[in-house]
């Protein structure tokens, strides 16, 4: 026993020596960095530090991964002019504000937050740090140094609806959805309208999960829809769990955010996807070049921000042609997803023939179109 004790003592001493030995070497490097401490790289111009705050994990196979691919694209495009950092799994609570402050403490002067519930905390941080530029994805607030950015995912959802409407055999589509907020409602409506445009008899059943990112919960919700007889599922969720549930049942699924054909090879049809890279690179470049100004951004299919992923062989015959036709009309502006006539669930006409929903109306939509089976609480 005494031997082991002395051995331990020796180890402790050695370790202490090692630490004190290297401490003086490391110490001088620390103070001058003060604010941030990325590994010393002192080229001519200090690189711009950009921080990303993610709701999910960077490899969630969906929403956050799409953003992270955008971050990587940004790094590739701007090279050594920029350093990016990210923090994943940041909840929609005050933790978000803390993470933002952490990133600023580490030297970030540009912050992107990627989930709806990060909005208030981003706004708060923006007010506290007027010299930092903030971008919040999917919300509606903004300020002098605080922009929101998002895109017309409804256009890609509409096309996905066409794919689903042609594929279904029993006219029951299932939609696993996160929260009853306008963004999600808008997507469900667009998907339904798209499906109805090729198959007037379809119904879209909605199942709420009240989480953006929870593979187990998402899968449970998907299974419930499958049990209710749906044969094409889609999702407003961050992971591929819905697609996997469809794969196991031997039916079809449409993803979201990314082309995820490999995670459900027999079920996957397509996915409405985001291409964030171009926006991130362009926006950060404007800051570096000194051309920045506060501006909210709502990209669309024409910009390439949203798109429909390439169709797989699982789609019904004739789908490609139908999608191409609608896509061309959306891009050239001759068709708008929310143009009348549109009826709500009660059958009342909400958008009369010949008129369109305004931007403000679609940003605050709180009713479902006819054909959706579900409730907005």
């Amino acid at each position: 026993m005494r031997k082991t004790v002395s051995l331990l003592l020796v180890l402790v001493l050695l370790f202490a020596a090692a630490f004190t030995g290297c401490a003086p070497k490391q110490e001088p490097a620390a103070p001058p960095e003060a604010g941030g401490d990325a590994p010393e790289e002192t080229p001519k111009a200090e690189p711009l530090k950009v921080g990303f705050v993610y709701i999910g994990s960077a490899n969630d196979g969906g929403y956050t991964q799409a953003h992270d691919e955008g971050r990587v694209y940004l790094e590739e495009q701007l090279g050594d002019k920029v350093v990016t950092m990210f923090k994943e799994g940041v909840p929609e609570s005050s933790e978000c504000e803390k993470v933002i402050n952490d990133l600023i403490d580490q030297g970030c002067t540009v912050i992107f937050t990627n989930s709806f519930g990060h909005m208030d905390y981003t706004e708060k941080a923006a007010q506290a740090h007027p010299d930092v530029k903030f971008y919040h994805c999917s919300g509606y607030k903004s300020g002098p140094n605080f922009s929101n950015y998002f895109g017309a995912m409804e256009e890609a959802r509409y096309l996905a609806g066409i794919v689903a409407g042609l594929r279904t055999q029993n006219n029951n589509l299932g939609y696993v959805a996160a929260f009853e907020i306008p963004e999600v409602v808008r997507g469900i409506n667009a998907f339904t309208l798209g499906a109805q445009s090729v198959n007037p008899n379809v119904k879209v059943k909605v199942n709420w999960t009240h989480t953006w990112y929870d593979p187990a919960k998402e899968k449970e919700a998907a299974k419930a829809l499958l049990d209710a007889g749906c044969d094409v599922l889609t999702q407003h969720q961050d992971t591929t769990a819905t697609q996997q549930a469809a794969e196991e049942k031997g039916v079809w699924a449409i993803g979201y955010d990314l082309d995820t054909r490999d995670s459900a090879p027999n079920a996957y049809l397509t996915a409405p996807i985001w291409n964030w890279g171009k926006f991130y690179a362009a926006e950060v470049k404007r800051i570096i070049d000194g051309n920045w100004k506060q501006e909210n951004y709502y990209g669309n299919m024409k910009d390439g921000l949203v798109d429909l992923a390439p169709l797989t062989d699982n789609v019904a015959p004739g789908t490609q042609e139908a999608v191409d036709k609608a896509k061309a009309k959306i891009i050239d502006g001759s068709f708008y997803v929310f143009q009348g006539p549109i009826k709500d669930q009660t059958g009342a006409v909400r958008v009369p023939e010949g008129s369109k929903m305004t931007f403000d109306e679609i940003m605050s939509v709180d009713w479902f179109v006819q054909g959706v089976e579900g409730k907005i609480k």
Partner: protein
Amino acid sequence: MIMPITIRAIKKSEPGRMKAALIRIGAMILALAASSLFILLLRLNPIDVYLKMVQGAFGTAYRVKETIVKTIPLVITSLGIGIAFKMQFWNIGGEGQIAMGAFAASYFALYMNDMPKPVLLLVMILASMLAGGLWALIPAFFKAQWGTNETIVTLMMNYIALKWVMFLQYGPWRDPNSLGFPKIANFPENAVLPKLLGVHIGWVFALILVVAVYIFINHTKKGYEIAVIGESINTARYAGINIKKTILIAIMLRGGLCGLVGMIQASAVNYTLSVEITGGVGYTAIITAWLAALSAPLILIVSFLFAALLEGGSYIQTVFGIPQSAAEILQGLILFFVLGSEFFVRYKFVFAIKHPTTAGKGAS
């Protein structure tokens, strides 16, 4: 012939202080060694990562403040847990008591907030302590009256409390201006705890409570009675201690402390009530209380170190771009060894070779 070797763990009669310290230091070294292997797997330099962890927790004034903010709920909850554990009341209901405390404080912050700020804050504090205390009193009452298992009851009551907060968040208390997003409105400025020296005033509460609980446990009659009940309920009965009453008082205190944590987190950190309010502190504090051997001054130190571990772990994610899960594995490894060492502090292993003659059937 195989001679089976048996290993038995035997409780040490009186663990020597020196030896215990050595075991703990040894555990830290092993923890660092094991995590180093893991860090090498991530293709990073372990020394670099450890230094960054320290920098992440203490590197700038801002980071020290953040570490303190994380320490505050851990300290107060650990103090509460310490009181209950001292009595061998295995209360794991910290989460629920924090949530109920936060709920009570939020009621006043959201719906009765036209009082002057000091009054409102005082009312919120009292309400939260009362709510946490009453929530803890339910399992204590069952235990004192019918001898129910408090571990299970307190655990189940956590779920009830958190579901209650969730119900409010998704239902009656949902902010009508949130466009359908399930969020309770932020507290008005009136209901937010002030800052002192850059950190919200909860740190003052924590320090005062450390002293108060230390005095209560070590220098008051009630504190002594609590310790006696913990050591032996029969001795307590023989000594004429009113066991039921003492249990109820201690648990009420314990719940009150957790409730206060709920108020502090809702008011000073979250600025609102949400299901995220507890942040798992109710469970984490069990570890810190236990590591601190339930001693109030040690709780302060251990909680601070634990908070530093959390902050450092968070920092290395952004610096090295490693996934959150990897940082959590690192924290887990360190904790595993530190907690594991407690076993070796309290027990020793006895190796014995069983002889076939005495082992009998066991030797087949």
